[in-house]
């Protein structure tokens, strides 16, 4: 029995059946789990597989959401255009930011990205007339075929599954391998004929695009957007999801984001100090489990030849 193929299918089946059994609130949460998982996986393309210090990924999430929301609320364009507009805008922003930042390495890249991202956030935050300022845009008119809680969920499930499949293919493709090579040894990559900057830029645009997809999904689920979606603290939270689940595995970020979203939702109901809990969890992970849940599992259950456990 090929568990590698069967497990995802079983999971998919369970997710598809879920809304039939769960109350609306839980369906909503499950949808959030899914799209956040996509967001984290898109970030991991850049940071886990590409070694790029993408410190402000939430910008693309926010822009994707705002893009979709703005088109749906302010224009008469058909809904699918709105749904695509967000991710495309996010990818475009990623390209622009990437071109500016990609010549820098590591920490400097991260910090410049934070600056640029904060600029975008500040602009959105203040532009009351266009973006609703710090109130955001509540009540986005989502098209009828995905307006109900159930249909929104299925739409999210479908889009997330397709996106994850695409990302999985990308990671397993020549591009994906080259990206990992660049992560591990940019000098060597350069010397064997790889245009490091061009590849990094491509990775950033892909990551930005799928981050934007996650954002547009949020609009469908929640019918609102707000500036905090692209605040830098959220970027760090997404980073934590990748770390928690395992940055060098494909499904790690999904695992990490599921844990974090579920914890945040259900813990916050009982304890008003979620940040404290998050901080403690993060500290424990960093000190004891730096490779994340899946990273640790991979090491434990499939020891490599000659490697000490």
């Amino acid at each position, binding site marked *: 029995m090929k568990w590698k193929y069967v497990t995802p299918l079983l999971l998919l089946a369970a997710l598809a059946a879920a809304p039939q059994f769960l109350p609306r609130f839980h369906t909503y949460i499950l949808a959030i789990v899914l799209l956040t998982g996509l967001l984290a996986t898109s970030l991991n393309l850049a940071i886990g597989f590409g070694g790029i210090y993408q410190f402000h990924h939430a910008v693309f999430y926010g822009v994707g959401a705002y893009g979709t929301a703005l088109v749906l609320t302010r224009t008469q364009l058909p809904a699918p255009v709105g749904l695509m507009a967000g991710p495309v805008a996010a990818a475009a922003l990623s390209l622009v930011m990437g071109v500016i930042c990609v010549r820098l390495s590591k920490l400097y890249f991260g910090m410049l990205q934070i600056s640029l991202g904060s600029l975008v956030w500040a602009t959105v935050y203040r532009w009351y007339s266009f973006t609703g300022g710090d109130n955001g845009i509540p009540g986005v008119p989502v098209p009828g075929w995905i307006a109900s809680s159930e249909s929104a969920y299925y739409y999210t499930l479908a889009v997330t599954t397709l996106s994850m499949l695409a990302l999985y293919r990308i990671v397993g493709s020549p591009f994906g391998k*080259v990206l*990992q090579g660049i992560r591990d*040894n940019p000098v060597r990559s350069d010397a064997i*004929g790889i245009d490091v900057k061009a590849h990094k830029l491509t990775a950033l645009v*892909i990551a930005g695009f799928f981050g934007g997809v996650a954002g547009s999904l949020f609009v469908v689920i929640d019918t609102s957007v707000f500036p905090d979606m692209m605040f830098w603290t959220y970027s760090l939270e997404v980073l934590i999801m990748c770390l928690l689940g395992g940055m060098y595995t494909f499904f790690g970020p999904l695992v990490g984001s599921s844990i974090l979203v579920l914890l945040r939702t259900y813990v916050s109901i009982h304890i008003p100090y979620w940040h404290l809990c998050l901080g403690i969890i993060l500290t424990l992970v960093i000190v004891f489990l730096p490779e994340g849940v899946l990273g640790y599992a991979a090491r434990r259950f499939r020891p490599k030849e000659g490697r000490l456990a």
Partner: protein
Amino acid sequence: MLKVESVVKSFGGFKAVNGARLHVEKGEIVAVIGPNGAGKTTLFNLITGHLLPDSGRIRFKGRGIEGIAPHILCRKGISRSFQVVNIFPRLSVFENVQIAVLARERKTFRIFSPVRNMAAEEVHEILRNVGLYGERDVEGDLLSHGDQKVLEIAVALGGKPELLILDEPTAGMGPKETERCIRLIKKLSDESGLTILFCEHDIGLVFEIADRIMVMVRGGTVIQGRSEEVRRNREVQEAYLGEAGEC
């Protein structure tokens, strides 16, 4: 094939390379030797585009190549290995060479095809040639040091170069591994007609396989010629024997 003319490179006030000359014909094995700090690696860095010369010309197949970025130079036919082991530690031996081949075939932007068996035949051939076929699934950083240096060469070969530049290929190797490496270099030259340029500390080896030898002292070229000429040359003797233990 490769001509270096009076190249100068300074860092701050220090002239690392000072009027060096080098000349490599197609199909030859040329070695650059010289005491520590003579500027051999800097010269190689100048040739492969990692550094820009202050003055002088570097010509490959007749065209100037000073300052061309390493990744573009690679496509023109020059591949290089590094002094300090520089492989992809988290990838397997197979994947290490595979990346190089894919880079050469310009397939690196393919995002929708699975990479697992791409270019497998060519990669296997290269691995067999250098003797690493048995370790093809082992992760790079689990190899022994000597194997890693051979992998370096294999990765450089993935680019199907016309000119292979090896920076101290036997550095840090024990006698057996060194033997193996030298035999590999000879084999690559004999069988594939590859033009090879390498630099070394161990003079004995160099005399064994090099067609011509260039001696560098303090950034400049003392002599370039066949082993006999070099052996007899006064300055070379002084540089090496005068500074005993400099090897």
